[in-house]
């Protein structure tokens, strides 16, 4: 039989995920000789054997690779055979360009879990067990190539046993960079607010304190959680009290799927999302009889559940069906991730700190997802997903996109890959800003790119826009906020060409200097035309009108009724003197910028129906309005007319009808449903009119409002019934967390056009 030899280059996430031992074993099974080695682009293989065996080998590489591996490029070329014995793993070669990808942090695998609970295993109950198939990655990597010295495991020299595994090509821990055991690896500690160790076994003592209703700060993969026993109503209430300004729902970590079933309903898609290796928080419909404290998710019909994702979580959850595990931060601050910082910031909230001595290099919040129209929708794409690439429909010049102001993420592109960062947060906060700057530096280092093109928002006062201004010698490209939303959805859905965009959002700075957010666009990466929008209304007090939906209610009432305001509770709740001034601000435009925001219309309606006149977190009013929906098919009238700014959606008739129903005592849930129904109807009507004008038949839905399940599903159905092809987000959030991706592709396209 004739011998043949092949060179095989594989790129993607192929390092630190057990790829070389897999290649080694596969090659031996196929009876091949040759070698495999890591280099900075990924994995390089030379294999020699009979033609048949080589074919089996190539199939195996593609189909049977380890679970954490993701192949983005696979090239095979023929070489002349040489004289050779056996198959070997060669040392890494880091001299070439470095494009090998770092894997995201991943849930502890089934094999490690089995060992964790096997009394005979040397890692029995060891909270830092991991292997090439699982464990920390992105959050511990300090540089590339991904080798132990370039991770925060550098502080832990391997013991002889671990070293043997590390060197053994047949071991699951062959070159597992975070490999550790109780002899050589990180350790748990339970400390008090001053950092003093608390006597006893840290885990047992932590569990005992939680059992007694205590609140613990727990150091995890990408930061700290605040933990409390979810079944202990008093503990939950105490945590709420200590996080006084924060009304956001608490996430729950549940022991297993059976425990999850006790609390919430979920289908197969949701189950897969919940149990997937990324382990996001999944928003699931709460069972009415779940029996937990209503303070966990006030005014919410959903619970945010996640399964344990580190060995430590699995150990903790043996004693609890469910723990509150909420991000350890104060209001707008980033999640705590450094030990001293965590103690100083959380000292007023946590009774004790369950910590370990493996440093977190990069902060990463839990990801949040829900299932919409039968597939996952990321609301916050962070731990577990980052830094996995989003593949772009077209390769482009390398761009840094600096994102929005709140829910900030940044994005770097390299060829046809876009690396969207972890959730960074509200940049006005200095810690967040610092984390933003660090993340940009870190990503540049990890992917060895130094983009000379920087994309930013049009808003002159966004911190990210200012940062872009300070970068020397780069080409800056300003991208309009809602154009970026449109492009973000197109990019993740792999669309090219021109589409229609219904961009329903909070707010973004418009090209005309007004505040946009209910936009009817046509366009693609290269540009957009604003074919219409929601009727402008004043936002009395600017940002104050976002914090206080009652102001937007007043603004919409004024637009619909003039000075004679209907006697609604939301109106009467505002003292007469203040009301007069607010109306004057609205009438005369005193610090009352004009907005076409859809999010602010949601806020106004939430206030009109009496749900909420102030909010404590972004999107709260709109979320509670969605949660209030009771099944109803009714609709309200609205105007859709061609005006100076194109097709203008005027909700005044809707507001009048809705107010009439509130005054007539129609239940809030039905009013909410009818409001949503009207918007869905409007979406279809708008798209029809835009199709007549442009001939375009693909509709993209993006912007923060499209986190609203009811509106997306109903709007999509109506659009599809009209023959439209509808595209919505899945991998990338429709909110500002996905903005940087859109900015990056728009800038990349413009540079490519040479404009």
């Amino acid at each position, binding site marked *: 039989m004739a011998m043949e030899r092949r060179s095989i280059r594989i790129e993607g996430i192929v390092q630190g995920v057990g790829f070389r031992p897999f290649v080694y074993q596969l090659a031996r099974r196929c009876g091949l000789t040759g070698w495999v080695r890591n280099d900075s682009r990924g994995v390089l293989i030379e294999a020699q054997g009979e033609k048949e065996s080589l074919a089996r080998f190539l199939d195996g590489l593609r189909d049977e690779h380890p679970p954490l591996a993701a192949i983005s490029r696979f090239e095979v070329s023929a070489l002349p055979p040489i004289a050779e014995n056996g198959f070997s793993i060669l040392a890494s070669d880091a001299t070439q360009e470095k494009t090998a990808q770092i894997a995201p942090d991943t849930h502890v695998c089934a094999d490690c879990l089995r060992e964790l609970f096997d009394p005979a295993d040397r890692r029995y109950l060891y909270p830092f067990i991991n292997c090439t198939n699982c464990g920390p990655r992105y959050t511990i990597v300090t540089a590339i190539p991904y080798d132990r010295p370039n991770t925060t495991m550098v502080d832990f020299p391997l013991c002889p046993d671990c070293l043997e595994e590390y060197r053994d090509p047949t071991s699951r821990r062959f070159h597992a960079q975070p490999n550790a055991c109780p002899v050589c690896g990180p350790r748990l500690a339970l400390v008090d607010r001053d950092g003093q160790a608390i006597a006893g076994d840290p885990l047992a003592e932590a569990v005992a304190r939680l059992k007694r209703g205590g609140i613990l700060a727990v150091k995890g993969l990408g930061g700290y959680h605040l933990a409390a026993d979810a079944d202990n109503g008093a503990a939950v209430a105490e945590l709420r009290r200590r996080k006084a*300004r924060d009304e956001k729902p608490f996430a729950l970590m549940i022991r297993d799927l059976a425990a999850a079933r006790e609390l919430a309903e979920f289908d197969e898609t949701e189950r897969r999302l919940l149990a997937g290796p990324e382990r996001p928080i999944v928003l699931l419909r709460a069972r009415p009889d779940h029996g937990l404290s209503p303070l966990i998710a006030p005014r919410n019909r959903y619970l945010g559940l996640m399964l344990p994702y580190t060995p430590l979580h699995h150990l903790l959850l043996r004693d609890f069906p469910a723990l509150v595990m909420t991000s350890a931060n*104060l*209001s*707008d*601050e980033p999640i705590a991730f450094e030990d001293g910082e965590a103690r100083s*910031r959380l000292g007023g909230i946590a009774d004790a700190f369950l910590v370990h001595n493996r440093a977190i290099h990069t902060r990463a919040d839990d990801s949040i997802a829900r299932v919409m129209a039968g597939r996952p929708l990321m609301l916050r794409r962070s731990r577990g997903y980052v830094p996995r690439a989003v593949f772009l429909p077209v390769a482009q010049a390398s761009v840094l996109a600096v994102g*929005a*102001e*709140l*829910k900030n993420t940044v994005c770097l592109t390299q060829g046809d890959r876009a690396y969207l960062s972890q959730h960074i947060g509200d940049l*006005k*906060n*200095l*810690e967040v*800003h610092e984390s933003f700057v660090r993340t940009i530096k870190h990503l540049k280092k990890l992917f060895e790119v130094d983009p000379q093109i920087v994309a930013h928002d049009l*808003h*002159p*006062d*966004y*911190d990210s826009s*200012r940062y872009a201004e300070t970068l020397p010698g780069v080409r800056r490209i300003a991208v309009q906020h809602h154009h970026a939303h449109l492009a973000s959805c197109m990019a993740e859905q792999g669309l090219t060409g021109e589409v229609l965009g219904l961009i329903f*959002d*909070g*707010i973004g*700075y418009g090209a005309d200097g007004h*505040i946009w957010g209910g936009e009817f666009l046509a366009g693609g990466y290269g540009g957009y035309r604003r074919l219409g929008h929601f009727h402008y209304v004043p*936002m*009395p*007090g*600017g*940002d*104050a*009108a*976002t*914090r206080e939906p009652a102001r937007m209610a007043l603004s919409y009432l004024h637009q619909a009724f003039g000075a004679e305001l209907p006697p609604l509770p939301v109106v009467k709740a505002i003292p007469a*003197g*203040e009301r*007069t*001034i*607010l109306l*004057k*601000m609205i009438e*005369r435009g*005193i*610090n009352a*910028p004009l*907005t076409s925001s859809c*999010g602010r219309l949601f806020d106004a309606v939430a206030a009109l129906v009496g749900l909420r006149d102030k909010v404590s977190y*972004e*999107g709260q009013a709109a979320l509670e309005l969605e949660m209030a929906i009771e099944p109803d098919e009714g609709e309200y009238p609205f105007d859709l007319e061609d005006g100076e700014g194109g097709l203008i959606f005027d909700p005044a008739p809707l507001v009048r009808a809705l107010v009439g129903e509130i005054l007539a005592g129609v239940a809030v849930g039905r009013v909410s449903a009818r409001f949503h129904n009207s918007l869905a109807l409007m979406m279809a009507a708008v798209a029809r009119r835009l199709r007549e004008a442009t001939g375009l038949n693909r509709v993209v839905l993006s912007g*923060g409002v499209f986190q609203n399940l009811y509106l997306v599903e109903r709007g999509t159905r109506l659009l599809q019934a009209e023959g439209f092809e509808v595209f919505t987000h899945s991998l990338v959030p429709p*909110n*500002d967390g996905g903005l940087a991706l859109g900015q990056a592709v728009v800038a990349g396209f413009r540079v490519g056009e040479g404009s």
Partner: protein
Amino acid sequence: MNNDIILLGYGSGGTLSHRLLDELIIPTLSGVAEREQNDSAILAHGGGRLAFTTDGYVVDPIFFSGGNIGDLAINGTVNDLAMVGAKPLAVAVAFILEEGLALAEFRKILEAMRAAADLAGVRIVTGDTKVVPRGKGDKIFITTSGIGVFAHALEISGGGAQVGDKILINGPVGDHGLAVLAGREGLELETDIRSDSAPLNHLVGALLDEFGDAVHVLRDPTRGGVATTLKEIARQSQVGIRLDETALPINPAVAGACALLGLDPLYVANEGKLLALVAPEAADALLEQMRRHPQGQGAALIGEVTAGPPGQVQLHTSIGGRRAIEMLAGEQLPRIC
């Protein structure tokens, strides 16, 4: 400056104003790109120094609670001289009057100017008057210029801040801007808010006599408010600045009105306030002295100069967070999603 016309924002005192100055006015007029960012120019003359400044006043309305355009024009120029440590000597004034302005109103304005000048101890020595047709102006515009002399050799400038310096303010912020806004828009606020328009030269004189070179920077936080002024100082001195939100004095009526109007008091204009950046060892005594003076009764220590990133102003908020204070491009724009 991509727009080829002057926008209102170019007069806001924020980044757009700075760009107009740095990219057009200064390079064209003097050929000097780097500008002396102080309230007055300092000229060498006959072995000594003179301070020289000018300012235009276009406030609408011309009468407001606590003052009018006349005393504002005197106090503004007197204060600009005082902020470089000079003793105001004489003021020149130019009026641009719109056809139709009531003589009685003009007289009232002139009387206010005279009273303000008397209070400051400065003479109005020369002037000019022009009248433009109805609709070509807005009732009255005033320009004042002032000249001052130095009684000492101190160098007080926005570039003089040193790490460790304490930051003092002589009273509560935001009164002037709100008084003008309420007057212009006819807002009936719960409590009358009066402009703080006042001459600060006597206060400055007293501080410099007693503390001399412990005073490193003086600046009046007018247009753009305390936020913009501190940002300018931080940049000019290449230092960091920490500002404590809870220490910032503010009248409850102003705080309430700001909340209602959605304005950040840090960006609201003042006309009788100064920020003094002083050596830490002298800070307490300086504060005491300030509080004994009629123009400094509400004085407070509001922050300090740090080795932090040069040009960065950090606000330590009441809830324990840290926020970056930035100059606004123009007006306060919504940014929360």
